[in-house]
C-alpha cells in the first residue's frame, strides 16, 4: 500500500492504494465521491469523467498513483457553492432523463465553457461527443449548454 495525496474538490486528501488501483474505483469506493459513474471501464462512455487540473479526463483509464499532488474536481466540487448557470440551465431544459450520464457530461461541458465561454453548437457537440447518453438524444443537453453560454 502506498499513501498518495491530492486535492479533491478543493480539499487536500490522502488515501492508501496499491499501484494497480484505478482512480475511478478509488474515488468511488475509498473516498466516498460517488458522482463519477462507471458505464464501461474501457474509456468508451465518459460517465467517469472528472476534471484533472482543469482538463476533462476519464477516471477509469487512470491509475490512482498518477494523481499524486494533482488537482481533481468532480461534480460534487462544482455543486458545493450552489449550482452553476450551466447546471441551472440543464434543470430548466429538463435536459437529463435518467441522469446517469449527467456527472460526466457536465464536467465535459464545464471544461469547454472554462476555455470557451460562448461556444457554437458544433463546438458543444464536439465537447460532449465522448459522453454517451442513451436517453435524451443529446439535443436537450446541447440546447441547455447553448442557453447557459449565449452572449447577452
Amino acid at each position, binding site marked *: 500500500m502506498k499513501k498518495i495525496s491530492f486535492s479533491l474538490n478543493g480539499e487536500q486528501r490522502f488515501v492508501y492504494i496499491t499501484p494497480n488501483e484505478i482512480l475511478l474505483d478509488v474515488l*468511488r469506493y475509498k473516498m466516498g465521491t460517488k458522482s463519477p459513474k462507471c458505464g*464501461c471501464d474501457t474509456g*468508451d462512455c465518459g460517465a467517469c469523467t472528472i476534471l484533472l487540473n482543469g482538463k476533462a479526463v476519464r477516471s477509469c483509464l487512470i491509475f490512482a498513483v498518477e494523481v499524486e499532488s494533482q488537482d481533481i474536481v468532480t461534480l460534487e466540487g462544482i455543486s458545493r457553492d450552489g449550482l452553476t448557470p450551466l447546471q441551472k440551465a440543464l434543470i430548466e431544459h429538463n435536459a437529463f432523463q*435518467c*441522469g446517469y450520464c*449527467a456527472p460526466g457530461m457536465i464536467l465535459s461541458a464545464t471544461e469547454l465553457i472554462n476555455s470557451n465561454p460562448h461556444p457554437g453548437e458544433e463546438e458543444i457537440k*464536439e465537447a460532449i461527443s465522448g459522453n454517451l447518453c*442513451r*436517453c435524451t438524444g*443529446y439535443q436537450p443537453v446541447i440546447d441547455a449548454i447553448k442557453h447557459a453560454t449565449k452572449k447577452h
Partner: protein
Amino acid sequence: MEKLKYVGQSSVRIDGKEKVSGAALFTDDLEFGPDLLYAEIVEGPHAHAMINSIDTSEAENIPEVLCVVTGKDFPYNFGLYMKDRFIFAQDRVRFFGEQIAAVVARTPEAAKKAAKLVRVNYSPLPKVLSPVDAVKKDADLIHPDLKHYEHVPWFFPKPDSNIAHHRKIRKGDVEKGFAEADYVLDDTYEVPRYAHCAIEYHAAVAKYDHSGRLTVWASSQSPHTQRNLFASALAPMGITHNDVRVIAPHVGGGFGSKAGVTMEIIAAAIATKVKGHPVKVLWNREREFYNTYQRLGVTANLKVGVKKDGRITALHHELYWDAGAYVEYGANVVNAVGLSAIGPYRVDNASIDSYCVYTNLPPGGPYRGFGYSEFLFGLESHMERIARHLGIDPVEIRRRNAIKAGDLTAYGARMNPNGLQQAIDAVEKEIRWEKKLVSKDPDIAIGKGFSLFWKAPAMPPNTSSSCFLKFNEDASVNLLVSGMDIGQGFLTVMAQIAAEVLSVPVFKIRTENPDTDRNPYEWQTVASHVTWGCGNAVKLAAVDARNQILALVSRTHYFPVETLFLEDEQVKCMTRPDFSLPLKDFVIAGIQMEDGTFKGGPIIGRGVFMPEYASTKANPETSQGGHPNVHYTVGAAAAIIEIDRRTGKVKVKKIVEAVDCGKAINPDLVKGQITGGILQGISTVLYEEMKFDHRAKMLNPNFTDYKIPTSLDLPDEVVPIIIEVPEPDGPYGARGMGEHTMIPVAPMIANAIEDALGIRIRSMPITSEKICLAILDRQKND
C-alpha cells in the same frame, strides 16, 4: 372544459436538481459498510451443453472466499410469465455465458480469482441458433421439460418442440380477402437482436439478516414484481413475501432491460447462504450485452392483399421469433405482437401466427417497443412498396387504411378514440411531403420516408397501480407510489397530477423511487403504462384526500360540501368569497372548534386503479373474444435523409414525429421522449449490430465495437408534434407514449432509402456497407 393549472405545463423535473448536482444515488453508489461481500459469476463457455460435474474445491480454498454456490444449491425455476429460468444452470447450459456458479468473497479480487478456479465438465450438445431451424421437426430440444413448466393461461407452448408459445389470430375470411385483392405482396423481413445499452449496469445488493429478513437493493424497473418473483422462487427455503423487501434507488436507464427479474435473483439467492452479510452482484458492460435480456430477433413473412385503390383486403403475418434460451418474459413480446401485427390499420380479414422459438442465444426479453418496432419494420416497408406499385401516394394509402375509433382490432375488440388521422395530416404538412427534393450534388441522393406506428401496453389483465398520499404540516405532500422514474419523468408527472387535484404547487410534492415495505403496490414500470395506470391511482388518491379535506371543513364550518373547493393551497367557498382556510393550518393539526376540541387529523389519501374491463379469455385458435389490450397509442412520422452514393453513408436531415398521447401532462417531457426515442431508433437501423462467433459467443459486447450514437450523430432537425385525443379512462385523458417514439424510425428510414436510391432493403440494420453492396449489386444487374 376544466381549466388546468399544473397538468399540461412543462414543469421542471422534480429530480432535476438531484441529477445535475451529483446528489442522485444509484444502486452501486450506496454504502453497505465493511461487512459487504462481493460475488463473482462463473460463466459457461458453451451455447448448449450438459453439465457433468462442477468442482468448487479449489475455489473454496482461496483466502477470503466465504462460499461457492451452484445450481444444486437452488434447484428452483422462476419466470414472469413462464417458469423456464433458473437462478444458476441446472443440468445444462443454454446460451454462451450463462451463469453456472458464483463465488462469494470479502473482496472483488478474491472472488474473481476463485471464480477462475471453479472446474466444470461439460458434454457439448448441438446448438440451435435460428428460429427457422429450431422449428424443424428434427431440431434438438432446448427445453425437453417445456411441457412441465408453469405458465400464464394465455400461453400455448407446444410440448416436445422448441415452440414455447404460439399466438394465433384468425379474423374474417382471409382466403376470400386474398381472392378479392387486385394486388398481393408477399415477402420476408429480418430484424436481428439488439441490446438496450442503458449506461448504468445492472446492480443488486442483497442481505439476508439473522431475523430472516431478505432485503434487496436493485437497479430496477420492477420492485414489486421482483419481490413477488424472489419470494415465489425462494419459497422452498421458507421465504415469504412478507420477508422480502426491495428498495429501488435511482435507475440509470432501463429500456426494458431492468424489468422483470434477471441477475437480481442471483444476489437474492446467494444472500441466503451468507446470512447477516450484504452481498453485491455488479454486472459489467459485457454481461449487460449477453446476460440480461436482448431484444428478440424475428423473421417475418408478410402477405398483404389490396384493391386497386390501396384498401387492404387481407393480411397474413407469420413471425418466427428468435426468443433465446429462456423466454419467461420474451414470450409475452411474441404474444403482444401476435395480437397486434395488423398494425394501425383496419383489416377485416387477418391471420397472424406469432411463434416464440427457443434458440441457444441469450434470453430475449422486453425492450422499448416490445416487438412493435420489429414487426412494423416489415409492415410499414410493405405499405410503402404497395403504394409505389399501385401508383398511390404512400401517405394516402395509409390514410385510407388507418384504423379509426370503433373499428375492430385483430382480436375483435373496439379500437379506442385516437388521433391517427390528425397525426398523419400534421406530419405530412410539417415535412412538406408533396415537395420533391433533388440534390444538386450527383453523389448525394435525397429521400423521404413515412411510417405509422401503434402500440398497446402488454400487461396481464389484472395489472394494477396504487398510491398513498400524505400531507405534511406545511401542506407539502408526500406521494407514495411504486412506479419507477427510469428517466422518463414519471415522478414529475405524478406530482403534476396530484398538484392539479389539490391545488398545491408541484415543487411542494415529494415523490421518490420506492421501497416495497413502504410504498403501495405497482406491477412494473414497463409497457408505457405508468402515466396512465399509476396516474389514475394518484388522481384517485388526491381526490380522496380532497374529499376528506372538504368534508372536514364542511363539518367544522357548516358550509355545504358542494360549495367548497381548493385553490392555491386553501379551502374556499363559492358562496362566501371572503372565506379561505389555508391547508397548512389543519392538514395535520386538525381544526379547533369553539369548545376547544379538535376535528380531523392527518389527511391521508389512497387510490387504486385496475382496468376492470381487460381480459385474456379468448378462443386460442382465433384469439377472438377477449379484451387483452387496454388501448393503443398511435402516431405518424416522416424523415428526410441524404445518402452518399459512394460510401452508402446516411445522414438524417429531418424527422417529424406526431404522437397521440391523449393529454401531455408535461409537454416538455413528452418531447424529451420523442427526441430520445428517435435517436435510439436511428441507432438500431443505421448503427447497431451484434456479432456472434461460431460458438454463439457475442463478439462485440462493448461500446467500441457495438456503436451507439454520440452527440455527433444527431439528425439535423427533429420536430416533435403532440396530438391530444383524450383516452376515456386516462388521467386527464393521458395515455402512454414513452416506448412508441422509436418504433417508426427503422421503417421510415428504409422507405426513405428506397425513395432516394430505388433500393429496398428488407433486413436490419441498414449499414453503409449494406447500402453500398446493394448499389453495386444493382449496377451489376443493369
